[in-house]
């Protein structure tokens, strides 16, 4: 069962990923092509998910929107992983004041509610998709730092690392070749879960007008624009919201299934 769930989640995420990557080939229409006469229509044979207020094809916009959302979220989470992970590993390896300084800084960042800090950062950088990515990356740095520091501390004390040190391996070599691989499963699980959360944060920012800007298709933005026409034609708002849900759902389920498979001890505790 566990493996079947993992297979299902992997397939689900992979399908969405492929759709997003090949958006330009897959989508039936140009997502920017306006056709005012055919606007705000419900689903039909021509437009499977209907059209928006400019008569643009909702399905094509959603496929491109998924691409935008995934690009921002994946970019941001990977950046956070690299930066936060490095900070966490160094803190664990060197201990002492490095550890204290780094972790206090992380505490400060951690003190802000996620969305609030992200809004503040975007306000400073100006609303565009790159700002949203930077904001999400900054917000997630402390999470990865904390995540990696704990287990890294344990590994650092192990005979294994002591052995590596004894044969004269350098610090960087020990950290990247001996400590990091041991943390792979934790990282994989958490990355998947945080990607899911990042999708939601990116959607919230776009929804508030702080992410991707029109006319570029973005799921949060489509939802935000679509709600102005809710009583005329709710399709754009409903389907773009569903797309956000599917993206976040797939990644979360994947993280969940990965955790079960890679680390059976944790199964079912959260």
């Amino acid at each position, binding site marked *: 069962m566990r493996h079947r769930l993992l297979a299902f989640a992997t397939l689900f995420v992979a399908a969405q990923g492929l759709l997003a990557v090949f958006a330009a080939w897959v989508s039936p229409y140009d997502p*920017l092509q*306006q056709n*005012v006469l055919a*606007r705000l229509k419900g689903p039909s044979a021509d437009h499977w998910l209907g059209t928006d*207020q*400019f008569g643009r094809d909702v399905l094509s916009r959603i496929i491109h929107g998924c691409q935008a959302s995934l690009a921002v979220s994946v970019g941001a989470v990977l950046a956070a992983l690299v930066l936060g992970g490095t900070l966490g590993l160094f803190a664990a390896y060197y201990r002492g004041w490095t550890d204290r300084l780094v972790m206090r800084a992380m505490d400060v960042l951690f003190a802000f509610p996620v969305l609030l800090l992200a809004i503040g950062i975007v*306000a400073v950088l*100006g*609303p565009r998709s790159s700002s949203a990515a930077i904001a999400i990356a900054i917000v997630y740095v402390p999470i990865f730092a904390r995540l990696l520091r704990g287990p890294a501390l344990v590994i650092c004390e192990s005979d294994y690392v002591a052995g590596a040190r004894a044969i004269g391996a350098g610090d960087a070599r020990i950290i990247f070749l001996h400590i990091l691989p041991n943390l792979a499963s934790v990282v994989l699980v958490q990355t998947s879960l945080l990607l899911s959360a990042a999708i939601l944060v990116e959607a919230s920012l776009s929804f508030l*007008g*702080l992410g991707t*800007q*029109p*006319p570029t298709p973005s799921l949060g933005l489509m939802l935000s*624009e679509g*709600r*102005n*026409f*809710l*009583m*005329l034609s709710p399709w754009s708002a409903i389907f773009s919201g569903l797309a956000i849900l599917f993206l976040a759902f797939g990644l979360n389920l994947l993280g969940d299934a990965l955790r079960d498979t890679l680390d059976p001890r944790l199964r079912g505790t959260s």
Partner: protein
Amino acid sequence: MARTTLRSMLLAGAVALAAFPAAAQTLEVAIDGSPAGLDPHIITAFTSFMVVNRTIYEGLTSVDKDLRLQPGIAESWTVAPDGKTYTFKIRSGATFHNGAPVEAADVVASLKRVLGKDIASPLASRLAAVDTITASGSTVELKLKEPSAPLLTSLATIAIVPRTFETDKDGLQKQPVGTGPFKFKEWQPNGFIALTKHDGYWQKGLPKLDGVKFNIVPESATRQVGISSGQYAMLPNIDAATALQLKGKPGVKLAETLELAYTLVGLNVSKPPFDNAKVREAVNYAVNRDEIVAAALFGAGVPGGPLSPALKDWAVDVKDFPCYKYDPAKAQALLKESGVAQPITVSMSVLPRQDIKDIAQVVQQQLGKVGIKVELKTPELGQFIQDWRNSNFDMFASTNAGSPDPDDYFYRTFRTGGSTNVFKYSNAEIDGLLDKGRATTDTAARKADYATVQKTLACQGPIVHLTYGQLFTAMRQNVTGFEIVANRSLSYLADTSAK
């Protein structure tokens, strides 16, 4: 379990409905944004203006639903033949909300307050021509440095407040005191602003309502559901898309008028490519205004020239502007003639408001067809304004409030060095005509001059005027007596009743 919860939820809702009927004769109005304060000499944004103008505060003069000048706190006035002395007779029987009668001294203090440096009122430039302000008995005399045709219209927007506030910076922001039909009761920031009837109002029998409550509801769908359910009785000054969704809803009716404000694309003429008049003309030919009306305004609007068609006495018919006929081939020819390197790539800064964002996307596509590649930028409002003020743009898409007198808008926008001439436009012929129009009070001569100005500006000016939208107000069926005004003032709330 779940079913029981749902049932008790619904039951609780029903009980709430039965136990608390809407208070009689308080009009529940829903608006989309909070005002920045309630001091009429400080706040100038639409939302703030809408809440206080002619509800809490009144000016010496007023403007009716046809945008014609009417008496306000001044019951009459005279203008000296040289156009430099205005004498206002102050109405007897008008009182402030604190009970004090309105006297000439209050009027003088109010105007001086607007001019005061500490108060720093942004409205000061509307009184820029004023030299001295003096009171004698029940009259107030304004002496001007030079004649100023738009002064009487401007005075309608300058609130009369008690003289004690002349040097008080903060008092009115929290606790406004005016002469209008409603007085301030309570302000829950982000919640509501409640006004109650001013019993000593000078117009007998008004206001008909016991009070007005402005509920601040940012979400359009929530406002729509609110008026459909009867929770709100009025959604003032809504756009066409919202109106369309409310059309035909049981219990809801719509009032509409052509708006004084217009949408525009501004061009920076201080740098290429828009320093070239041919390129500006090409943009005018490339823009299909009818399509913009259809696409972004849902058909509710008209193509607009430099003046609103609502200004029947002044506006030139758009049919008289050759470049208003959509002609992409002509646009391409003009671009070729201009000698500017093609393809042209420019960025457009877009005011962050839904209808403007919509219009910008349509314009982007239209200009793309003639080979002008436009990149849209939607900065946050503060950034937009800063860029606008600092002329930091190639093009921008925005909206402009419009004014009942042409001089007010033309002079500050198109005169060399005008206060909102952010385009850096300079044209000696236009400057001459504007100076002349400002200094004379001969209406026929002004009309001819302003017609020339409009024709020059329409095709080669720094602004591509796009559309004048239809403005709507949605009301419950039982609301009567309200008239919608093109400048978004809610002045007819005094005559409104809800039975």
